[in-house]
């Protein structure tokens, strides 16, 4: 189940909150747990038993790990507790990728390719497997005590607001809130506003832009297309003038941000309505003056996870500069692969790793010298170019799009030709770069992080209520195209 669906917005969410708030405080975690399991089972009925099974196993392994005094056994149990979620992640997410590449090698070396049944990827596995790892490691390191109640641990792993698209919540950040949390009316209302902001980002910006990107680049995954359809996409991209090619790439740059940030906002908002304080996941990433800064602002919970559970264990910067660059690059390669099991994600991660290293070597200094605005523009354009490899799975198509962008065959496109796309992109750009100004920073502070007065609550509520209604309307009307009469 996704947040931007009728099932969630018009049925699941209202019923859940009605029951949740009518239930005595002590029993609310059970309601949330039950709802989370229903939420996940609805989207991935095949996988729910494995999710619950592996979570229960982890709970007892960690409990045992904490009880035992033997260091060897402690390490073994810690390893085992990490292997279970990571093993599931590797199997489900990278099984097909591994087999495809293995068969490619077998074919090239004259061997018979192996047959296998394609594995369906359970939604959210990348997120909850990482959360499970944070639980094990935080407990192992003594940062937090293990959960006493099994239901609390299952709730931490499966909590529906962040289950399928993050933010990745470290155990230490939320452990106390699961056991005991307060939610006042202000939290509930501000959570609702935050949810609606996220919904607007997703439905009114990302989906509108995304439809236009798909119309040119086709679906992100070509596996469902026949050769004729793929060839049509290539022909279409090859015929693009440079203006349109840039518009397509910029459109995707905004789409991915508003989609992902919108989803995070919705998760944070839903959590806040229940009294949870989930960590922020985005901090105006397109206002970054370097790739390093970009990664401090983009998908911050993933960055924190990689820093704490991969970069530092690999040695971080403690083992010399050469090793530091190597560690950084490995982290970004794996980060790329975490986003998706195909080579284009690896290339995307590798490019980011390369520019992070370049930042540390010289690029960071250059960016500082040229000033804030030019460095933001250059970083944005660089990020925009690298997103092409993220969006287009086929490497030759990605390269073709980049070639069209730099073919310098610019044409003047009338605004009226695609007014909705251009308007939406302007709105997206406005909100992406708003915080470059002090005024924008004040607005952000006021909207997101300050308590409202009664009058402000009323005004914001009216806007939020209309926005919610408008989003539901957009969700359902955007593809409503009836006929006058049936024509047989």
């Amino acid at each position, binding site marked *: *189940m996704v947040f931007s*669906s*009728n*099932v969630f917005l*018009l*049925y699941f*969410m*209202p*019923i859940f*909150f*009605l029951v949740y*708030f009518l239930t005595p405080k002590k029993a609310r975690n059970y309601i949330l747990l039950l709802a989370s399991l229903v939420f996940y089972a*609805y*989207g991935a*009925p*095949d996988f729910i038993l494995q999710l619950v099974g592996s979570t229960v196993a982890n709970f007892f392994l960690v409990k045992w790990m904490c009880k035992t005094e033997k260091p060897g056994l402690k390490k073994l149990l810690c390893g085992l507790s990490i292997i279970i979620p990571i093993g599931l992640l590797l199997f489900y997410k990278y099984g097909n990728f591994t087999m495809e590449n293995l068969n490619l090698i077998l074919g090239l070396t004259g061997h018979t390719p192996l047959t296998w049944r394609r594995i369906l990827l359970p939604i959210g596995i990348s997120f909850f497997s990482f959360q499970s790892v944070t639980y094990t490691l935080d407990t192992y390191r003594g940062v937090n005590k293990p959960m006493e109640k099994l239901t609390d641990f299952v709730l931490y792993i499966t909590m529906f607001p962040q289950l399928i698209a993050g933010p990745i919540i470290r155990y230490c950040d939320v452990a106390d809130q699961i056991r005991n949390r307060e939610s006042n*009316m*202000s939290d*509930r*209302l501000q959570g*609702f506003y935050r949810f609606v902001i996220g919904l607007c980002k997703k439905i009114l910006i990302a989906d509108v832009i995304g439809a236009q990107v798909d119309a040119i680049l086709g679906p992100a995954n070509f596996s469902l297309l026949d050769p004729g359809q793929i060839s049509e996409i290539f022909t279409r991209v090859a015929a693009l003038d440079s203006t349109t090619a840039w518009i397509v790439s910029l459109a995707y740059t905004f789409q991915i941000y508003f989609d992902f940030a919108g989803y995070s906002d919705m998760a944070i908002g839903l959590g806040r309505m229940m009294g949870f304080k989930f960590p922020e996941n985005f901090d105006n990433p397109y206002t970054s003056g370097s790739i390093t800064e970009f990664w401090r602002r983009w998908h911050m919970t993933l960055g924190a996870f990689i820093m704490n559970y991969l970069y530092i264990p690999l040695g971080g910067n403690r083992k010399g500069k050469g090793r530091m660059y190597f560690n950084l690059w490995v982290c970004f390669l794996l980060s790329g692969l975490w986003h998706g099991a195909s080579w284009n994600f690896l290339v995307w991660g590798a490019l980011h790793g390369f520019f992070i290293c370049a930042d540390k070597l010289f690029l960071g200094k250059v960016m500082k010298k040229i000033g804030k605005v030019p460095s933001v523009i250059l970083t944005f354009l660089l990020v925009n170019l690298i997103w092409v490899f993220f969006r287009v799975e086929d490497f030759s198509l990605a390269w073709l799009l980049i070639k069209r962008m730099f073919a310098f065959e610019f044409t003047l496109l009338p605004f009226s030709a695609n*007014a*909705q796309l251009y*308007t939406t992109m302007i709105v997206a750009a406005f909100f992406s770069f708003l915080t470059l100004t002090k005024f924008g920073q004040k607005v952000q502070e006021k909207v997101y992080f300050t308590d409202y007065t*009664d009058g402000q*609550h*009323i005004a914001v*509520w009216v806007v939020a*209520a209309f926005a*919610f*209604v*408008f989003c*539901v*309307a*957009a969700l*359902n*009307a*955007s*593809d*409503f*195209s*009836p*006929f*006058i*009469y*049936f*024509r*047989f």
Partner: protein
Amino acid sequence: MKTTTKTILFALSAVLLLASMLQNWLNWPRFKPLKGVVVEEPKPKLTFQNCCDGSFQQQVEPYLKQHFGCREPLIRLYNQYLWDFYGKTPVTEGQVLFGKDGWMYEPWVVADHYQRQFRQYASDSTQMAMMLTLEAEQLLQLQQLLEERGIHLFVCMAPAKDLIYPEYLPENQDTRFDNEPKISARFFNEKEYTRLGINHLNLEQWFLQIKDTADFMLFPKTGTHWSKYAALQGADTLIRYMEHLGGINMHNLVIGPRELGKAQDPDDDLESLLNLARPLPKPKYWYAEVRADEDTTATKPKMIVIGDSFWWTIAFQLPFGEFFSQIPYWYYNSSVYYYPPYDSVAELDFAEELLSADFIVLFYCATQQYRLNDGFTQKAIEVLANINDSIAFDSVAFIEREIKRTVAKLLADPSSMDMIREKAAQRNVSIEQALHDDAEWVVNYQIEQGLMNWPSKQRIKNTKSENHGIQ
């Protein structure tokens, strides 16, 4: 005090979230229904099995999109936003084109104006011409078979908006496929019907003549069908034509006082597809009550109408009972209207219905001439061929046409043509000969297997072909 405000707002949030579900459950308040037709999504039935395999979940979202509470005002709200800000709604992406001065056209009507519509029905203009000729020849045979039984068959071509009002057509629509051969069924059929002597009434040509002298608009600005005024003119002409064709006296139309008023269905059918919250500004249209005169000598024939939606504009106005004894309407030769208890052509005794009619009219708009009467002609001939009466059936002509039709189909299929070229080379005959032989084999095969409703059950004589594997 502060808590009270927040509590009220929180309660209002709950009401907001529950509003859609409650409206759906209570069916209150009721909203103005949305216009247009869509394919209804079936209501998914929840079972353990379909929930586990995910099929229930896949069906729920499309179903809810059509059935969630408060749907109508929400869709109109978003459409109005799109219209006000961008001058479009989802239907304008494919179903409505905007011409000059706010005039609206259906895309296929515009496509036909530039003779490109045939691409939906045939691979090229040559094949389309072949199909239209065969249909016309078959129509002639049907006309003769019916005439011998005292039934009058005729074609009535309703006018299309693009030809009557080309001055408002959208710009930049005539450039695509400019260098390729084109064909327009409306002009092609007119020539063929005249050449073969098929009874036909071309209202489009007549409307072109009266356009400048007509008192009112023949097509509404925001509709695709002819105006109610034009439809009455058409109905009057149709009745006069029937009198002439059948040598009978029918009732005349008596038109009551004319009134100018707001657009009535279907005069704004294209606009209504936009499903906006506010109606668009448009001129007033002419409406009047219609009845039959009191001529006691007039007869009321039974007429079967096989046609498209242009007939509705007549049907919505004309009190049929005053002009016809019965007037079943076979919509696209599929659904049946005005003929209880029948709903579908498949339910009818086809032969009995044909023989009980005084008139049969093939009533399609000029831009729908590619549809070849939705298979009616072919089916009617097959049925009449099997009626055991004294009237002769020209089986040779029928078979020759079937072979030609099959040749046209084979020509349009590249893989079949590859095989035929191969066979022609193997047998050392021309491609044309191989093509004809295979088509003949296919027709024989259909007759032998009972796939064609054929009376003689005999193989075509002088067949040269063997089983060449084309099926």
